[in-house]
């Protein structure tokens, strides 16, 4: 492998001379410059929100316990918040609700535009500016009592809160043990959706404790059928606290009979 270096060719043949050399050199320099600009730009875009979310993190009273919710457009800041040991929540500004954020565990909301504050309404206890954004403190007690407006949703579980690297683990649904989700609902039509996977075949039954609603049975077949949907209507009067439950009945097998719930959400039809 170790060959001695060969002495320079004092007069290389003409075929070895590079007549296009200067042009090649110019192209190399240009390519490197463009590449450097592209990399720098991508890096800066990736870290554009880091300082803002860090300022928000420093501004909350108990940063380790606090959970900051922010619009999905700021998802690039998630790695930075995770590095600060804070697990953020992302939301869609057109579909989120005060109750949904509270049930998800949010304590603060980074608002990028006034419509977010309007949607939260009386569930905001205080606010302070963070750069161009506003850091809202959520009144969780008030938020949990707010009904779900039409077109809005509650997400209890989401193991994939930003695109690829999950922030939280999927929730284990033990065999024959119910998992209960609570919500305060006004009369209206609703859709409960969840993602589930189990290695052992079986079913997951969803129930809604409202009069006139039937339980639904969803078959788990080793591939992640997604999502399972249970639609129902609440035709009573006034807001009501509703429980939605999931119960798995899985066959025994080589794997432990458990199901994984990746996501559970309830949306109110417009």
């Amino acid at each position, binding site marked *: 492998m170790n060959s001695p270096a060969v002495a320079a060719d004092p007069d290389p043949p003409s075929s070895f001379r590079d007549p296009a050399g200067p042009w090649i050199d110019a192209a190399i320099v240009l390519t490197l410059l463009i*590449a450097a600009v592209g990399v720098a730009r*991508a890096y800066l875009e990736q870290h554009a929100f880091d300082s803002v979310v860090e300022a928000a993190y420093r501004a909350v009273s108990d940063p380790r316990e606090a959970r900051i919710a922010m619009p999905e457009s700021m998802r690039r800041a998630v790695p930075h918040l995770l590095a600060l040991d804070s697990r953020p929540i992302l939301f*869609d500004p057109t579909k*989120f609700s005060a109750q949904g954020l509270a049930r998800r565990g949010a304590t603060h909301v980074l608002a990028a535009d006034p419509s977010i504050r309007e949607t939260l309404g009386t569930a905001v206890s205080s606010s302070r500016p963070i750069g161009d954004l506003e850091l809202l403190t959520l009144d969780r007690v008030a938020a949990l009592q707010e009904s779900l407006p039409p077109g809005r949703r509650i997400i209890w579980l*989401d193991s994939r809160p930003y695109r690829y690297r999950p922030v939280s683990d999927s929730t284990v649904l033990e065999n024959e043990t119910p998992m209960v989700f609570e919500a305060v609902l006004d009369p209206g039509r609703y859709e409960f959706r969840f993602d589930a996977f189990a290695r052992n075949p079986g079913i997951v039954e969803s129930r809604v404790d409202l009069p006139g609603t039937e339980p639904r049975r969803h078959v788990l*077949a*080793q*591939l992640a059928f997604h999502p399972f949907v249970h639609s129902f209507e609440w035709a009573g009067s006034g807001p009501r606290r509703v429980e939605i439950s999931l119960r798995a009945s899985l066959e025994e097998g080589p794997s432990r009979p458990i199901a994984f719930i990746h996501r559970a959400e309830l949306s109110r039809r417009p």
Partner: protein
Amino acid sequence: MTLSRSAVRIGLGLALLVCLGITLAFDFTVGYAADESSHLHMVEHHSKSLDYASWEDWTEGSYRAHAYHLFSPLPYLVYVPFHWIQQRTDVPRNRITRLGGCVYAVAQFWVTWLLVSQLLGRTGTALLATLAANLIPELRHLHGYVNADSFAILTGTFAFYLIFRMRDGERMRLSLTAWVGLSLAGLAHAKPTAYPIAGVLLAVFAWRLRSYDYSRRELLRRIGIAVCIPIALALPFHLHVYRELGTGEWMAAATHLDLSTTTNHGLIDRRPLDLGKQLQFHWSRAYTIWMTTWGWVPWHAEIPSWILTQVSRLGILGVLGAVVAPRALAPLVVRRSLLLALPPLTLVFTLVVLIFQSGLQIQGRLLLPAGVAALVFLILGGAALLRRLSGISPEHSIAAVSILWIALLAWGNLRLLVPDERFQETGSASRALESHAVVREDLSPPLDAVRPLEHEAFAFEEGTRDVARLDVEGANAPNVGLLQ
């Protein structure tokens, strides 16, 4: 084996026809490969758009186990013209789309020939060795269904050709330098499992440059060409991945396995495990490395697993020995000492990178891009050993080993060309997905309780694609995802 130039050409044509024939036969006999539906999804996308595939297409259903939308469109472009024809005909099961594999079959054969003839010259012996090495991707029907592995293997083999094409002490022509750059660009567009080969190619390139006394400007020009071509051709793709991931990662490598183990199985937790325990675990099931590399043969089930385990362990130790003391293998060298040292080094390098990249999941199939070169090397090494033992000429020993290899492969694999219930396994897609989870979950004792990995390549299931389609069609909500 000395043959006339025309005889070698005729032999090349015949060997190519054999490879094409096998490709076509598998095109029609293979049912649905476990992950073909995801690859077809990519081809379908690129038949409409040359832009990168989007997350939204992969958000729902079983496709989301494969992060192929984070892969380059390049491997799929070969299939696109055939897919256009497919869409205008009534031929079932994407048979015409799969014909894109014939392009890869021809290219792979040619590149393997380049590699082997670089080592052995354009001789009849080289022809036999080429056919023997090339039968592996053919008989593992890599070209018989739509996938991205064919591209990775092709670029990996070409990189090895260049590794041997560059010579110490020679002034490197700019054209060869440009080929190095193009090869690096190709590897950067291939699967992440090909990236370590790019690293080795770059290292050898630097080593070769060092062996000639260039002027500074000439040296920088060559480095610039080799580096700027991949930058120009592949950096935009990797910048796309960086932005798309939004996680600060530059490559999709880590997320691919993450996705397959998390979104379908919910096994998101990546708590660090004790390294010693993991090494003990993998050592105890070394035979699965044998099963999942190209040393796998259909009749492996007839061989007791303890034999495979011992063979695999000896193989691992042998490769490590070759890296630690390459000069010890010098007597086996056919033409130069580097010949024996580089491929094992590359394989080990690849393995180490992938082991740590994929959370210490050892899967032999991740070594595919280096596979053909490794087989060429295996044949030459085996021939050199035979020569030492028997004293016959190098040409005859290489020919003998090649013929033996072809015969073994033919005996074990050609029956696959005939549809056989034995290979129409059901439920395989689930098991293939599950196999990742088995590795992750069962990393604690008792080690004996661990089930072997299922082998994806022979996992065909008639209904897989239908299930996947239903799955996606059923997911009608534009779940841009992950949101409140």
